[in-house]
């Protein structure tokens, strides 16, 4: 995230866990809150930076997960509310094309205008499809329900859509990405400037999260190669059962290097740019909280990619209660265990800084 976003923020380094107490510290430095009754009251909001505007970098954040039902929409809507309450101008975008339901998590009926209207040019400007949410500073761009237009977009259409979304006047834009690992899904994740991957402590979710990471990593490399002949190798690697013996990104990089040493070096640099963060949701036991840390260790060793954990959110009955009432969870239960953890994730987003260029170079050598 651009350092501009941090302006006016006091004492960013004392760790949000100080406010919430609790002995467990996750890899992100934030404590998961499993019991709200022992936590102190919610802290004061973080003041918004003085300088604002649409041209800021690092403000588009994609929330993905590879699997349905892990809480992507809940996380997106809650972060949206939380960030808006910190005084940021936020727009949440339902990019779950074909299966949009972000509006439900915000307690709204299906909005009249959706992304479909913009894609099909029934409205001229993307601002025309931003709906009010009833929360100050928070707007919603509802997802397209009409499956055909939405799920079969060409790459350039997605790029165009994303570039329009990025022109929306807001401090932070949150994209709720659909389930699956198709290019449609992965491209939205990659086109955003930051990625958050929601995972729950269940075998199917963990497996899908890895698949999602691997596929989006390969796609990221493929995109950066543009017209290079080495692109063909990346395409082969994306086929999990490929006949060329590429099983891991290490195999892939070696195969590329054999064809073209320069492309190999280039890809190694590009590999470092891929840095999504993990959010562990529905944590029931303290040991599950370490899932993010463990998964990132496996990714470093097996995929060569460096992903951090951005926090952990406890399993919480009140999420279900809010959902049942069709009420925004973060408005009704901000003091609940899950509400507090999500608030910490929102703070982690506000405090996050892009890795300094110097550190990046040091890692590359």
């Amino acid at each position: 995230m651009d350092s501009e976003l941090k302006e006016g923020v006091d004492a960013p380094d004392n760790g949000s866990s100080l406010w919430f107490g609790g002995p467990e510290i996750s890899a992100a430095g934030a404590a998961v809150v499993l019991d709200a009754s022992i936590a102190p009251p919610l802290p004061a909001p973080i003041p918004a930076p003085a300088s604002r505007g649409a041209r800021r970098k690092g403000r588009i954040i994609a929330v993905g997960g590879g699997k349905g039902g892990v809480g992507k929409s809940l996380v997106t809507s809650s972060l949206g509310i939380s960030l808006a309450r910190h005084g940021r101008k936020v727009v949440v975008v339902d990019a779950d094309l074909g299966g949009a339901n972000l509006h439900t998590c915000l307690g709204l009926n299906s909005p009249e205008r959706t992304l479909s209207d913009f894609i099909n040019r029934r409205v001229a400007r993307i601002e025309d499809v931003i709906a009010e949410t009833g929360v100050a500073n928070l707007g919603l761009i509802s997802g397209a329900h009409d499956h055909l237009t939405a799920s079969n977009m060409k790459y350039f259409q997605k790029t165009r859509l994303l570039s329009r979304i990025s022109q929306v006047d807001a401090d932070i834009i949150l994209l709720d990405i659909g389930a699956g690992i198709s290019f449609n899904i992965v491209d939205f994740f990659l086109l955003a400037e930051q990625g958050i991957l929601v995972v729950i402590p269940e075998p199917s979710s963990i497996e899908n999260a890895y698949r999602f990471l691997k596929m989006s990593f390969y796609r990221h490399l493929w995109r950066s190669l543009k017209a290079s002949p080495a692109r063909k190798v990346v395409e082969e690697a994306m086929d999990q059962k490929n006949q060329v013996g590429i099983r891991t990104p290490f195999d892939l990089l070696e195969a590329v290097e054999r064809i073209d040493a320069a492309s190999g070096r280039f890809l190694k640099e590009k590999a470092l740019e891929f840095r999504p963060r993990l959010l562990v949701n529905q944590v029931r036991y303290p040991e599950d909280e370490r899932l993010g840390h463990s998964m990132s260790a496996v990714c470093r060793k097996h995929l060569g990619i460096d992903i951090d954990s951005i926090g952990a959110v406890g399993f919480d009955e009140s999420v279900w209660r809010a959902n049942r009432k069709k009420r925004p969870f973060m408005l009704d239960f901000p003091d609940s265990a899950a509400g507090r953890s999500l608030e910490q994730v929102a703070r982690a987003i506000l405090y996050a800084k892009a890795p300094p260029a110097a550190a990046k170079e040091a890692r590359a050598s």
Partner: protein
Amino acid sequence: MFRRLSEQDFYQVLEVGYDASPEEIQSAYEDAREIFSREALVSVSILSEPERRRTYERIAEAYQTLIAEESRRLYDESLGIPRRSPSRSRVAVERHETPLVLSSPLNPLDTEALSQASSEAEGALPSGAPTPPPPEKPSAELWRSPLQLGLTEEATGEFLRLAREALGLDLATISEETKIGCSMLEYIEAERLDRLPAPIYLKNFTLQIARCLGLDEEKVARTYLSRIRRLQSHA
């Protein structure tokens, strides 16, 4: 760092700095062991079983090399890392909760500990003597195997196993005391020539095992190594 695990040095494998203290190495190893164990969901969801095992073994190898001071020093030399300042490493060892260097059973201190342990067991502490604090957990210093090597005998893997069993100890306990992985202990006892590490590491391991079992460590290490060398030349 975009490098295969097999191409990373042991410090990179454990994700610790070159100046890591024994505690840091220990805790990094415990972390990694948990993540790459057979039961760990996080690794079995993405790694094939051979991949997982290779990773696990590489981590164990890194740990075994770096946790013992002598093998770490040799390894550092091979990497061309300048000697760590002795003050730091000494402080680090002193802070370590479980002693890395177990004192020899022939040490007078240990004889005291032995007699104390036996008198405690009988509940017959010498009257008037101040009550010593009870040991927090059974320490290797209290063990002394009833089996000892004869003058002309050599230490075999089977001998090490018998000496261990005579004390009623399992591999996990030895592993805990020596910080040598259970699988490595098994290989040593089974004399798995295809699995044993380079002589310098093997010497260190057998020294530690013998010390832990209350055997003549120098003799055990020397004869076990020459035996393995002989077996390897015949293999």
